[in-house]
């Protein structure tokens, strides 16, 4: 079980309020991702749930029990840190055993759980090594192993993949997602990487300056961003936001159109522009186009085999059904 509810939670550091009153519910078994630019308060929020920071006001409930005043270790949560936070003087086995040892668990039960965790994380051969002798990915696995053996009601991940290289990150991303599918335990995952958020989450919480901008499933956020910030943040490459007469034609202050919803042609189309940079990825080509009123450059995602060069004149046609409209407050108009 692991239903986590935040009720009117706030957090001040001195006189600055980093989190204004905030309500959030994470259902049991959900994979929730807190995403936002750096400094948006997502890590602080996670630390509030873990109990590493005290709330200034408001309540944190886990399975309907008020844990606001309860010490971190008694909340039944496990956390995986960005720097792994392994104990450098202990072997992998002792690292994983540490929480059970602190809880006074029997040697026999400890070994059983260590072996099970090591097996599922491919760590069996490394149990007698020290963290200093492991690679980044292995260290991250040990940290996860240490979290698993406590049998927590929820896992908390604080940017666990940002210290890994790109290839390893994709692998670990899959492993963590698979682990969630298998265990069906609540997980809360903090990241600044919207790709991680989109690929892993059941529920994405987009934060900016301590305020929740939108909560929803990845595709909800993609198709129906509640405001300009979410529209710009979710999706890669970023959505083009156009503020000009073109927007007024649609009865909005700003219109947004994703790069993948614009057709590009060298002969005819609604908008005319010149190619700046064309990034060839093989499968796709990202073309940055100048000369469109209200949005410079405008990004278009085209097929991999188009051959536009710098300086070419191109014509663009947006898919009318995929245009997002925002009012002067930046909110979505339906």
């Amino acid at each position, binding site marked *: 079980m692991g239903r986590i509810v935040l009720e009117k939670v706030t957090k001040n550091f001195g006189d600055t309020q980093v989190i204004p009153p905030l309500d959030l519910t994470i259902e049991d078994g959900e994979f929730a991702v807190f995403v936002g630019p750096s400094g948006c308060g997502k890590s602080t929020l996670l630390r509030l749930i*873990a109990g*590493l920071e005290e709330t200034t006001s408001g309540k944190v409930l886990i399975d309907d029990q008020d844990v606001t005043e309860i*010490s971190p270790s008694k909340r039944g*949560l496990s956390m995986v*840190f960005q720097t792994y*936070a392994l104990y450098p003087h202990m072997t992998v086995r002792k690292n994983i055993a540490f929480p059970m040892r*602190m809880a006074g668990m029997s040697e026999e039960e400890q070994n059983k759980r260590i072996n099970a965790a090591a097996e599922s994380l491919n760590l069996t051969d490394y149990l007698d090594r020290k963290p200093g002798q492991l690679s980044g990915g292995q260290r991250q696995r040990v940290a996860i192993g*240490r979290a698993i053996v406590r049998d927590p009601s929820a896992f908390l991940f604080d940017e666990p993949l940002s210290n890994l290289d790109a290839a390893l990150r994709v692998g670990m991303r899959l492993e963590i997602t698979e682990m969630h599918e298998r265990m069906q335990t609540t997980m809360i995952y903090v990241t600044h990487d919207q790709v991680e958020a989109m690929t892993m989450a059941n529920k994405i919480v987009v934060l900016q300056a301590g305020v929740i901008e939108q909560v929803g499933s990845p595709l909800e956020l993609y198709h129906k961003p509640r405001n300009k910030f979410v529209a710009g943040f979710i999706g890669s490459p970023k959505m083009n936001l156009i503020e000009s007469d073109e927007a007024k034609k649609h009865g909005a202050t700003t219109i947004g159109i994703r790069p993948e919803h614009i057709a590009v042609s060298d002969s005819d189309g609604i908008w005319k522009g010149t190619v700046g940079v064309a990034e060839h990825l093989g499968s796709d080509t990202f073309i940055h186009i100048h000369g469109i009123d209200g949005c410079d450059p405008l990004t278009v995602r085209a097929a991999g085999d188009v051959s536009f060069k710098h300086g070419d004149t191109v014509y663009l046609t947006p898919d009318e059904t995929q245009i997002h409209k925002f009012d002067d407050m930046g909110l979505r108009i339906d």
Partner: protein
Amino acid sequence: MSNRTLPRLLQSPAVLLLLVWMLIPLSMTLYFSFIRYVLNNLRRPEWTTPSLSNWRGFGNYEFVLNSKDFLFAIQNSLFIVCSILFLTVSLGILIAVLINKTFPGQGIVRVLLISPFFVMPAVNAVLWINMILDPVLGLQGIAVGGINEVISGLRDAPLIGWFFSLWPELTPISFRATQTSAYAVIIMVTWQWTPFAILIFMTSLQSEDQQQKEAAILDGASNWSMFRFLTLPHLGRPIAIVVMIQAIFHLSLYAEIEIVSRGNGNKNLPYLIGEFANNNIGAASATGIFAVILANIVAIFLLRMVGKTLME
């Protein structure tokens, strides 16, 4: 000239200088330790100049080994060094952990804590033995006298007087006495060198990973467990360094011993050498060779220990 000769030639002055620096004193000490050589002897004036014709073989060594103070000096050297090490390391860790937290006036407290280290050893000894530990005029004498006065005053008080009349009168301890002079030296050197330990431990504590501690909090570790399993292993290396440096320094304590009791009841090897060197240079040199051997044994032992922690 092969391509190795030139570099070696260029190195040679430095190497030669170091050899001379080290070998001449050592070989002279060795030479003196095998001859009869005294500074003043009216019956045998020929012994007052060093010469091979005064060859004594291992006679000086035998003389030193049989002198009543030799074994005592070795024991006492080790006793003083080990006590100081134990006290400075444990006090150092305790205080370093204590002042590692942020509190108002932190900067001033830290400077004050470091300051004993800047006092000269002789001044330190004079200060402690005369102004603090003196049984009459020192802080100790005044404090004991004050307590005695208060107790004797309370003896006449109604109701509780009977309780205090059971108390004995306290006598101050004389730290210049044979039985206590070693303790006086240990106290004053500990006072002076604890700041060194604090300084090293404090810098090490500041480099401790805070996320590790947070992970330990979530893992349900108590403050004691965190100290025992995280902080103490983290301090392993600095502890080894503090122990090694201090052992080297404290094997050669001299000023404090001289000032506290002039060696009365408290000698170490350097002090014994000094005593012999008043007249008997041969015996002093033999003692010096013993000191070199002891220092080497300690050094090998310590290097092993430090090496082991550094390997981890």
